[in-house]
């Protein structure tokens, strides 16, 4: 499995002409864990979602190449996309409160995902759902399976979401800020769980976040985006060698215990970053 | 001020006065509305109807009451563009004059109802507590009657006629206005800028009049424009059932009622006023629908 993105642009129509949200992004993802980091509006989510063709209908996408395992996404029909979505690439979104269907039980939603790509009976699917819930370390799978999303905590909901996306055994998992809506204490747990599942199944992972140190902790490689462009690509281990002032600024903003500061540093933005000339 | 500089002034991102901000907002809404052909068709129709009704004495070639029994139930022709009715009266002339009644009733109802609903709803929403609960109960009661039926009962109790019809429709029309104003107020009431105004020492009356009412106006205007068609239809139904304007008044609903029995032999006699009602009500619906799209961004694509 290999994801190739070359010179990807995504524009939205606005009263004053199209506004570019992603401007010429190029990256490749192989069998690895890639982190994409940037602030809101940097285009990181759009870039990842364009892989599944899950952009808002008014979005205009252009790219020299946008391919999933050799399949040209821009040319792919809806039918072809459906054979990629879920089955080969899963998507986990920010807040399970909104991303789970409020009127279906957790079990039904996982079973639906399981049955979609395998022709099995309802009972088998339910058992598979319980098994998946156990795999995402839910202690009482039967109870959670019969619960509606609003009856679950955020962490629980996100586990259900992970179980649902793991059900068809995809090759790639895209996690779009999977922990931003969760309590700080649960965040690490969920990320560890995800990392564990991904490694054990030999999947690739695209982890989108605004938290640079967190991402570098869980990923092999980190891409930093700003205003619709990739400003820096780093090995997670080489974070300290970041060159772009934006990345360095982000790192400098973090307070550390080893070098206490009286006043937290803030990021000063250089308009030149917008042009991609650094 | 030239056209381009006026446009720039209106579209400025940094208005320098409250007046400029207000006009700029209106201009943007207008730009949005202009792109909706259905809404514009509605607006133009409404303007034409108003002009035609106001200019009825100039436009009508005949008096609406002039009878010509030798020429009754005439089909549309060069002399009588829309034909004549059972008493030989010119249908076009009657429609033009009747437009005054229909539009007049709509305006009268809105003028009676909108301010009352707005003030009552905003006050109840802002004050809260018991007055609010009582108001909601009262609106519940009025909303529990289908509009036409309550109006019919009212008119029957007073005396059939245009004035009673206006009062009856007004009585049935106010609760939704009060509810909308209240809902808007509840949304605005807890915002920070109202808290700031209160801290600055503004009185309750001032907050309601200066801050809450202007902000609730938008959704009220949408409601009014959508309600217009319902008012027209209710007034016409009252006329049709003999409970509104009384013959020989050229009110459109009453015209349909008195010509109903000719529907098979001379369809144009009852159909012309019916079409007039339909056109007026559709025009308001189109405009209201377009306004809702513009003023309520959530509904927009």
């Amino acid at each position, binding site marked *: 499995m290999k994801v190739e993105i070359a010179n990807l642009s995504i524009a939205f129509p606005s009263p004053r002409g199209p506004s570019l949200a992603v401007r010429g992004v190029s990256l490749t993802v192989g069998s690895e864990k890639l982190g994409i980091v940037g602030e809101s509006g940097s285009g990181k989510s759009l870039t990842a979602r364009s892989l599944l063709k*899950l952009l808002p209908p008014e979005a205009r996408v252009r790219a020299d190449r946008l391919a999933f395992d050799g399949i040209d996404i821009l040319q792919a029909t*809806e039918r072809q996309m*459906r054979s990629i*979505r*879920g089955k080969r690439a*899963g*998507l986990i*979104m920010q*807040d399970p409160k*909104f*991303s*789970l*269907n*409020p*009127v*279906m039980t957790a079990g039904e939603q996982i079973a639906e*995902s399981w049955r979609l*790509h395998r022709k099995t009976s309802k009972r088998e699917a339910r058992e598979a759902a319980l098994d998946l819930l156990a795999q995402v370390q839910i202690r009482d799978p039967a109870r959670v399976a019969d619960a*509606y999303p*609003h009856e679950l905590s955020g962490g629980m909901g996100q586990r259900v979401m992970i179980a*649902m*996306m793991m059900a068809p055994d995809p090759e790639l998992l895209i996690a779009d800020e999977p922990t931003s809506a969760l309590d700080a204490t649960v965040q690490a747990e969920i990320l560890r769980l995800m990392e564990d599942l991904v490694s054990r199944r030999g999947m690739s992972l695209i982890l989108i976040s605004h938290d640079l140190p967190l991402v570098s902790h869980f990923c092999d490689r980190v891409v930093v985006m700003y205003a619709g462009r990739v400003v820096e690509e780093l090995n997670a281990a080489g974070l300290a060698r970041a060159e772009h002032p934006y990345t360095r600024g982000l790192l400098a903003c973090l307070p550390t215990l080893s070098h206490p500061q009286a006043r937290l540093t803030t990021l000063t933005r250089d308009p030149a970053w917008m042009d991609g000339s650094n | 001020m030239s056209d381009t500089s006026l446009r720039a002034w209106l579209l400025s991102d940094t208005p320098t006065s409250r007046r400029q901000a207000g006009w700029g907002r209106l201009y943007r809404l207008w730009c949005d509305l202009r792109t909706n052909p*259905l809404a514009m068709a509605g607006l133009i129709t409404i303007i034409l109807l108003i002009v035609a009704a106001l200019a009825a004495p100039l436009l009508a070639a005949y008096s609406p009451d002039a009878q010509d029994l030798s020429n009754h139930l005439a089909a549309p022709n060069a002399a009588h563009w829309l034909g004549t009715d059972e008493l030989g009266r010119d249908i076009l002339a009657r429609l033009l004059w009747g437009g005054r009644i229909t539009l007049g009733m709509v305006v009268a109802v809105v003028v009676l109802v909108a301010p009352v609903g707005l003030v009552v709803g905003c006050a109840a929403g802002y004050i809260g507590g018991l007055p609010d609960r009582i108001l909601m*109960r*009262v609106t*519940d*009661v*009025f909303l*529990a009657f*289908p509009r*036409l*039926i*309550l109006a019919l*009962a*009212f008119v*029957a*109790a*007073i*005396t059939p006629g245009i004035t009673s019809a206006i009062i009856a429709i007004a009585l049935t029309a106010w609760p939704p206005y009060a509810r909308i104003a209240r809902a808007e107020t509840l949304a605005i009431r807890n915002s920070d800028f109202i808290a700031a105004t209160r801290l600055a020492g503004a009185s309750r009356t001032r907050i309601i009049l200066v801050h809450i009412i202007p902000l609730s106006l938008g959704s009220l205007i949408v409601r009014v424009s959508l309600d217009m068609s319902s008012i027209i*239809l209710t007034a*016409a*139904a009252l006329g*049709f*059932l*003999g*409970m509104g304007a009384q013959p020989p008044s050229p009110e459109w*609903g009453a015209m*349909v009622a008195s010509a*109903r029995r000719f529907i098979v032999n001379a*369809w144009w006699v009852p*159909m012309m006023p*019916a*079409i007039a*009602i*339909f056109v007026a009500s*559709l025009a308001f*619906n189109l405009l209201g*629908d377009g306004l809702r799209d513009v003023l309520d961004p959530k*509904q927009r*694509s």
Partner: protein
Amino acid sequence: MNGRLRTLAATAASVLITIFGLTVVTFFIGRVMPIDPIVAILGDHAPPDVVARVRIELGLNQPLWYQYWIFFRNLIHLDLGRSVMTTHPVLQDIGRYFPATFELATAAMIVATLIGVPLGVLAAVRQGTRTDHIVRIVSLAGSSIPVFMLAMLSLVVFYAALGWLPGTGQVSVVYDGIVPRITGMLVIDAAITSHWNTFYNALLHLVQPALVLAYFSMAYITRMTRGFMLDALRGEYITTARAKGLSASTIIWRHAFGNIWVQLITVLALTYAGLLEGAVVTETVFSWPGLGQYLTNSLLNADMNAVLGATMVIGIIYVFLNLLADVLYRMMDPRVR
């Protein structure tokens, strides 16, 4: 459990208060008459002592609250007074005319739902396309057209010109009075008692008024369905459903529609109540022997007991339909259950 009981009590209380309000409003409508009710009954030239006697008999010399109390007490004993026109107790009249309205409104409701809901879904799914615009125009026209115009047009076209459907009334004269009255709904009664000719005839008579009424409610149902669907389709869980690789029809019907049908039931209940209003005009045009026609006839004869009785009954039906919608909503939606 305790919480649920409390909600139930609160709902019951609010229904009772609303119905109480309905009776107060109805009572006062009956009392705003500018003409003295006694003069209305006895005429202008009644001797003064007779007027005084009747005034006491009717309780009109009592204070207003006391008059209301009498009105309310009678109401509890299901006494709405007598109709001057039919000389029967008003409630008995209403019982006789209501089934025909119920039959008409239900038929209209079924048609309106079966057409309106899929149309609304279609418009939402194809938002902004030509399909959406056409549906929008069709539904706006439906809420702009006067019911009497549609009714007359239908009579001219399908009865007078084409002769496809029978004209006014509930059934042709030859079949009148053959079927024993069981439910009061002719189509149902004829089917129960196997009077198939009458059944067929009555069904044909039902088509026109039902379709006219249906268009009127379909317009509303379509617009509401479209709005709800647009909201639902914007939900994050729809993105999830798409990311799972589900087909468009599963996403639309299971995931989006699955989230709105409970809300739609509320709309349907309200629409049904609105049909009672449309029925007044429709029944008048089609000479349909229902509550609407009863109301119009009473209005034209200034038969106030009948007018107020019918108004109040329609109001109460309206309240109970709302209550039904509320209860169904609580039962069906897992989020409030």
